[in-house]
């Protein structure tokens, strides 16, 4: 299958506009490649915003109340620090506070490396997981993105979709790896799923067998038996996510997994420092080497 994540998002959006009177809203959508080719190249249903990073998400909330099922494109997750309030304080609280829904899909795009620097690097889904009323997910494959979209259309919640540019060219699904002889279970989120795959392969070469469970839904987090049983069997787990550890997704998920199984689960994220724009100062998604080293340390 050649269809990439970017193709999938673009086609889902095109259909959303055509079939559901949907609308996609954001800055600089039409110029420079339609957001890495994830937005359909058309004027219908595409709202080009001025540079407005606080009112912009307010506009999206209003479009949601008007029944347009908007898709709000945030081109770097750093802009979420500005756009957050209408999302968490209106859209996410709307049902509880006013009794009417405010369905809004936020496409929050994370990037890293290549000089993105201290402000514009990384994903900030952890801070949104903190707030009630807002489901959070991080799809990295075409099939996962379709499921997320289906969820959006079949429910009336707002949704924070933590995307990563590293996934846009991906055309593979990422199946879990579960083996009877595994000694540890690795849970991976977002772009760390790609490095975790590599880490599992590298460790296997060294005779250390790991399970790998891919996590797409971060909140609500309701792990299935198929996701929990491998941890029960290995007795030890590690959650990896490319966000900061303190109050971060990896620790939160590790706690839930541990509570559900009674097993020890560790968490791993970014190094605790801002990334620099120069390559030697970067702070990237935990690499296969870092993940493997952490697993070896857990096993010692």
């Amino acid at each position, binding site marked *: 299958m050649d269809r990439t994540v970017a193709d999938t998002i673009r086609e889902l959006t095109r259909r959303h506009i055509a079939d559901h009177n949907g609308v996609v809203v954001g*800055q*600089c959508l*039409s*110029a*420079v490649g339609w957001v890495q080719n994830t937005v359909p190249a058309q004027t219908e249903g595409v709202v*080009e*915003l*001025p*540079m*407005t*990073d*606080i*009112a912009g998400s307010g506009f999206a909330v209003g479009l949601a109340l008007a029944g347009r099922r908007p898709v709000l494109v945030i081109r770097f997750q*750093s*802009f979420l*620090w*500005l756009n957050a309030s209408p999302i968490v304080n209106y859209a996410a609280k709307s049902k509880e506070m006013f009794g009417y829904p405010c369905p809004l899909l936020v496409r929050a795009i994370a990037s890293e490396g*290549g*000089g*993105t*620097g*201290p*402000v*514009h690097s990384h994903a900030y889904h952890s801070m949104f997981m903190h707030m009630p009323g807002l489901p959070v997910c991080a799809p990295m494959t075409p099939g996962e993105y379709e499921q997320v979209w289906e969820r959006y259309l079949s429910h009336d919640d707002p949704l924070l979709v933590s995307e990563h540019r590293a996934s846009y060219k991906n055309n593979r699904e990422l199946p879990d790896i579960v083996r009877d002889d595994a000694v540890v279970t690795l849970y991976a989120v977002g772009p760390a799923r790609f490095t975790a795959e590599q880490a599992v392969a590298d460790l296997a070469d060294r005779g250390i067998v790991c399970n790998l469970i891919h996590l797409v839904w971060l909140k609500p987090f309701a792990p299935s038996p198929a996701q929990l049983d491998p941890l029960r069997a290995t007795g030890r787990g590690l959650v990896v996510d490319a966000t900061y550890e303190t109050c971060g997704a990896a620790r939160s998920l590790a706690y839930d997994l541990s509570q559900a199984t009674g097993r020890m689960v560790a968490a791993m994220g970014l190094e605790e420092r*801002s990334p*620099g*724009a*120069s*390559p*030697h*100062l970067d702070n990237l998604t935990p690499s296969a080497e870092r993940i493997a080293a952490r697993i070896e340390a857990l096993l010692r």
Partner: protein
Amino acid sequence: MSDPSSPDRTPDLGAIAGLAEAEAASQSLELFRRMAVARAFDEHVRRAQMAGEVRTLVYLGVGQEAVAAGLSMGAEGSWVLGQHRGHALYLSFGGRIERVIDELLGMPSGCCGGMGGSPPIHDFERGIVGHNGLIGDQVPVAVGMAMGGTNRPVVTVFGDGAAEEDYVLTSLGTAASRRLPILFVCEDNDLSVLTPTRDRRTWKLAEVARGFGMEAVDIADDPWLVAHWTTALMDRLPAVINVRTCREYWHVGTGSDGPGEWNRYEMVKSRLAAMGLGDESRRIEREAAQMVEARWTERLQIRSAS
């Protein structure tokens, strides 16, 4: 949408006849020197990036250097807060050149230790304050500095895109309401990344500023005109200058979509020649290029030695 970019996007917008000719030759040549240094610098950055010496993202201001040059002539001694496309502003206001070269080279001696590349360059001791990369964020910070009563006026420079940010508009309103000592300068290249103004809005910044109760002018980037209005308005702050200018290279990086609508740099050189300052301007241009080359060579040697 109606098009706010026409018919105002002309190189003569707001022109005042005889302004350049009335200026002392030494001042005109200093004005040009600042333009020449900024241009030589950014042309060098472009080559250095293409050669792989500079590996971080760079935001080049070639074509726009008259704005910073003119502004710096009229606002010396101010706090200066610009945004990502700020090399010319930094150099024109006396930022130390080695600190910005080192930053672009990712060296610990860079003004941000290599953390930031182009956007956050600063020389705080010289009044040049860093930008975090969230566009327009510097404008409310500048208003806060103006509230702080440091006995120094504040100049903040932002783009036509940044002008649309919620917090930029409310900064104008707050400065007007409190009569703060701040000059807002919009470097209006008609582009937000690659989206032209006409696809984003119909309003004009100068009219909005007047609505808030501030003096405002909308002019082209003739550097004598920019200097003239800066000097005049520094006595009547708060105020807004919207300057129409042309970016020659891409939003980020080294590519080009062809020449801008006008070439201010060449226009200034022709004007100097017509004023009998052709030889001096050529010498200044040569010296600027030599200085920039020499400083880059020196810094690269230091980097490779470390």
